[in-house]
């Protein structure tokens, strides 16, 4: 779309900038402050420069958690995005069932995150949980508290259960925003169902898919409450993701300096990946000539 240049548009954007910047700048300054100082008490502070950053980057546990986290987020994206699109395509477009579907889909999103972990904690137990019992009855030996792979799968399935609806709702709204005329023209042109998906639906979903990918990546990369409540990071440290490690450092061990440095690095990693996703998807459309 050809957009005219209009600096007065800043007036429309100003409220947003003010509210968000106001909320963001102060914490950022605080974190940076903490990350370059060693603070024993308000009176005794030493500037330590990059010492905390070096400590963080040399910490093996952090690298291990980063690896697990990347794997987890990758799995989340690979499952939830296609699944979300697929389910959105199966949903009815009109009629009484639309409301029912929307409400039922929305329910997993509305459960407070610690309660999600709590439910799955019982739900997946082999003795008193529906899923746990069922899986063991089917012949698989499944115990998420003992087996690292089982724990991983459980956390993954829990996340899919919890968050795929976000992708579905976004894609569904995106699909509904496609005017009927496009489908009608495609019928007249004799397009197959797959061609309709490829040439009409998918291109028009690009906007919502970008949001879905970014949101799911960011939120899964920062995931804390659900796995912590479910597995506590275990067995061992097999499901200890980055956020949990950070919280342990900041709250448990009370190492504010390293924790602040860690927070900044954490933020930069997410920023980097998000920027890459953003550029990649923004250019995807331009590349097709």
């Amino acid at each position, binding site marked *: 779309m050809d957009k005219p240049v209009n600096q007065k548009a800043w007036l429309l954007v100003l409220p947003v900038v003010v509210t968000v910047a106001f909320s963001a700048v102060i914490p950022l300054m605080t974190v940076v402050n903490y990350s370059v100082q060693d603070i024993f008490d308000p009176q005794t502070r030493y500037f330590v420069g990059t010492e905390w950053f070096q400590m963080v980057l040399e910490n093996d546990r952090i690298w291990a958690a980063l690896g697990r986290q990347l794997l987890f987020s990758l799995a989340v994206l690979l499952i939830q995005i296609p699944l979300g699109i697929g389910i959105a395509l199966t949903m009815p477009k009109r009629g009484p069932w639309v409301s029912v579907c929307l409400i039922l889909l929305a329910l997993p999103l509305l459960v*407070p995150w610690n309660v999600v972990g709590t439910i799955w904690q019982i739900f997946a137990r082999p003795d008193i949980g529906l899923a746990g019992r069922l899986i063991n009855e089917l012949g698989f030996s499944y115990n998420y508290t003992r087996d690292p792979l089982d724990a991983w799968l459980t956390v993954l399935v829990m996340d899919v259960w919890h968050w795929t609806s976000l992708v579905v709702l976004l894609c569904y709204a995106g699909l509904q925003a496609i005017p009927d005329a496009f489908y009608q023209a495609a019928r007249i042109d004799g397009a197959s169902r797959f061609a309709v998906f490829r040439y009409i639906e998918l291109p028009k979903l690009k906007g919502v898919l970008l949001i879905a990918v970014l949101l799911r990546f960011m939120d899964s990369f920062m995931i804390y409450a659900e796995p912590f409540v479910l597995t506590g990071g275990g067995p061992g440290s097999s499901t200890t993701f980055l956020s949990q490690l950070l919280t342990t450092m900041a709250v448990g061990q009370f190492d504010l300096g390293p924790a602040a440095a860690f927070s900044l690095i954490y933020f930069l990693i997410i920023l980097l990946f998000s920027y890459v996703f953003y550029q990649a998807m923004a250019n995807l459309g331009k590349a097709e000539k």
Partner: protein
Amino acid sequence: MKKRYLILLVYIVFLMLPLYWMLNMSLKTTAETLTTFSLVPQNLTFDNYRVIFTNPAWYSGYLNSISYVSLNTVMSLLVALPAAYAFSRFRFLGDKHLFFWLLTNRMAPPAVFLLPFFQLYSSVGLFDTHLAVALAHMLFNVPLAVWILEGFMSGVPKEIDETAYLDGYSFPRFFLTIFLPLIRAGVGVTAFFCFMFSWVELLLARTLTSVNAKPIVAVMTRTVSASGLDWGVLTAAGVLTLVPGALVIWFVRNHIAKGFALGRV
């Protein structure tokens, strides 16, 4: 046609099972939950719900949550709509960077914001108010709202704007009577997400409140007692937290489902 509804049905059943299990647990005593496996409660009890309905801390928790979440949703939408329009229709200095920067505010672990926000809101006397939590939540809801709305707005051909101006519409009238109905799916879904993310947010809501504005999510964390976690009451509260959100999506369902209707054109 049938096959696709079968897939949808299977998926919805998958979504409902843990929720059914939560309902199941909420109607049992904690002891029963932890010792026996039963698909329906052996000793059906409404005690858990009774605890919630009779304890003022619980239902005031609900009211508090509903208050600040509604406030936040409205404020976020009001602020985000003009900004999204600007991003969608105009180019201006720094627009691409600004757009991306907005989203970066969701990229930091929330724990980072706790102490600074606590100091900030205390110093302006907003500690323990609904307004404080509503404002604090705007940090992550406003960028989301702007991003989603911009996407939907860009899907509306600019020719429609121009036709309206030529027909003599003033900007407010055009925006309210023509433009907004065209993006109603986007507005509906944005409203729901703002509601949802604010509703479930725990850390900030708990940090910025103590008594007067304590949200339900914070009250629920108090179900840990000396004898361990009170599964019964916790799951009953969990069931009840679904209700407001379900209502919200029921109210916006028509907007999400209607999508693009060419109205007057």
